[in-house]
């Protein structure tokens, strides 16, 4: 009886940990999570640690056929054929940054996905964060 209870507790703990990992992914220098990713907008939250990386590139892949109404901050590059919106964030300050995309219409399926890249502030290795 006691063993069953312990087993359940461990399973619950593991689920909580896994859910936490899924909700927010982080690499050295940056962590990211979608605050909203349905309806007519996505809000991507970036947390930049101290010391910050030299620069961050944020790629958001939006579902085909979705038209962007507005972006804040404004994106750096949009590849229409690949539906990839890019932001180049130079010399980011430590703290929190929100990237908001508003669409004409609603997002189908699971919404947008994101790939965030930066160089590790400590050793210069490439860090990649993928949000699906």
């Amino acid at each position, binding site marked *: 009886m006691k063993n069953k209870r312990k087993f359940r507790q461990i399973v619950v703990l593991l689920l909580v940990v896994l859910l936490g990992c899924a909700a927010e992914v982080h690499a050295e220098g940056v962590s990211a999570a979608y605050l909203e990713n349905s309806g007519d907008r996505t809000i991507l939250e970036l947390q930049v640690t101290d010391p910050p*990386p*030299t*620069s961050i*590139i944020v*790629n958001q892949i939006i579902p085909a056929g979705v038209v962007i109404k507005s972006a804040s901050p404004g994106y*750096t*590059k949009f*590849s229409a054929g690949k539906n990839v919106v890019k932001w*180049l964030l*130079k010399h980011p300050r430590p703290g929190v940054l929100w990237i908001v995309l508003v669409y004409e219409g609603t997002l189908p399926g699971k919404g947008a996905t994101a790939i965030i*890249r*930066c*160089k590790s502030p400590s050793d*210069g290795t*490439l860090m990649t964060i993928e949000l699906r």
Partner: protein
Amino acid sequence: MFVENWVVNSSRRRTIVTILDLFLLIVRVKQKNLVSIKHMSDKKSVKSGIAMVCISGSEVRHLREQQNLTQLYLATAVGVTTETISRWERQGSPTVKEENGVKLAEVLGVSLEQILFSEDAGAVAEKIVEPEAETAIRPARIVAMALVAFIVLLSVTAFFFVGYQSVDTFQFSARRVMPTHTVSTLPFPVVVTVAFVSEKESSLLLKEELPPGCNVLRSVPPATLLDRESLKWIDKKGHGLKKFAYLASCSSQGKNQETQTFIGSLLVRQESHREIIVDGPDRLKLLEYHWADSDMDNVIDDEELLAVYDDFGSVEGLGVDVEEVERIWMGSGYRWKPQEHMFEIIP
């Protein structure tokens, strides 16, 4: 004294000198003691705590033959073997136990003094003492040699100890970051990062030598000495992490895909000086790809753009055309136009 000249300006080193001097003092005291032992043995004639005398072998033989005694008889009476009696008689002045000398004299019916080796009284004393003195000095020499060996060992250990301390307070490295290729005559950046950790003020001399056909266009901080193919920076407060950068260009001189080799060295001067070769990439090929396009696929991707910012973006005033790299990144690719001598960006 070598040790005193060598060990200077450090409390640790002074401690080593003190220890060495202490041992030298011990050696001197030991030597004094050994001399005292020798003088004592002159009077006592003691070997390992046993009183010894020097007898006259010929006198023993003469007295024995005079009384028609056999060597076996003497040996039995004294309590030694016949070989021992024979050896005593053959040797001119053998050294024997005083106890055996007394017994021998009794058997021969004479006093001990009569069978002692007696060229003269002084000679007797000397003959008695000499082997004992030698015996006393031998362990003393061993002790002295052991002490000398110990001091040598200590000196060697101290040398490495001081050397290790120098390394510990004297750590430095130099690493170059540069592209693997560029287009002939187009400028490209080179950054040398110097890390130097020291407890003391030190001066650094960083030297970069460019291959023939390459020129320095700009340097940050401005080089102390600069000619077309070499740069020297002298930094008198060389502590910490510093970046030395320059913008250069190389011409192919008619040889396409020629590999250019860069050589750098870093010299650090404190009490002594040490020099290392600048680590990192040192070869550059002249090709028709942008220097930031490290995989040479005519596209500058996210990683390549980040590398430009990370490696060269932090050096202000160098004049790296990061905007051009960004423009290429924003496009879908680029191609080199030799006639126009520029990159065409593919939208």
